């Protein structure tokens, strides 16, 4: 998981990174161990948070699109061996930056499973928060 490799940079930015997943706490802990993750994980097997943050499900045609298949092949080439997923494989991911006033400063709603913001995009979010802090 690319996010994990940038943990120190997010910490330097003063951000807290929290993951949200659909599985049970046991599965989440196994997932953390599998990828040596140190981010906290919220378990949301009933999709309560996914719903209130407006994250929908993919269609079958988007699940098997060339972009998604290419991303899967790239993951395999990096040595990521897929395991049996727990949860809803059709669920679309997303990323939100919430400031200390409780306002969403950035939102990314993935349109298909391959549509994720790059690490560079996420690291650039420090400028969004800084703009607000100093009124630029």
């Amino acid at each position, binding site marked *: 998981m690319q996010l994990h490799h940038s943990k120190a940079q997010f910490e330097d930015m003063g951000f*807290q990174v929290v993951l949200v997943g659909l599985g049970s706490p046991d599965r989440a*802990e196994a*997932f953390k161990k599998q990828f040596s993750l140190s981010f906290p994980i919220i378990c949301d097997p009933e999709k309560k948070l996914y719903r209130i943050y407006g994250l929908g499900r993919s269609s079958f045609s988007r699940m098997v699109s060339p972009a998604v298949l290419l991303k899967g092949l790239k993951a395999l080439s990096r040595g990521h061996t897929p395991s049996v*997923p*727990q949860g809803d494989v059709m669920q679309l991911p997303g990323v*939100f930056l919430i400031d200390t006033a409780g306002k*969403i400063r950035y939102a990314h709603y993935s349109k298909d499973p391959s549509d994720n913001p790059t690490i560079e995009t996420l690291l650039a979010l420090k400028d969004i928060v800084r703009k607000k802090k100093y009124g630029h």
Partner: protein
Amino acid sequence: MAVTEAYQIAMDAEVTFSDGTDRRLSDLWEKCPLLLVFLRHFG
């Protein structure tokens, strides 16, 4: 679809962490900006 600078009020909820602890989501953004990353699935 990517939306930047959305400025909507974030929804709060009671959440459960993988270690079994329960917290309000708003507790997480109280002291520092929160990057909330929703995954597709574990695995």
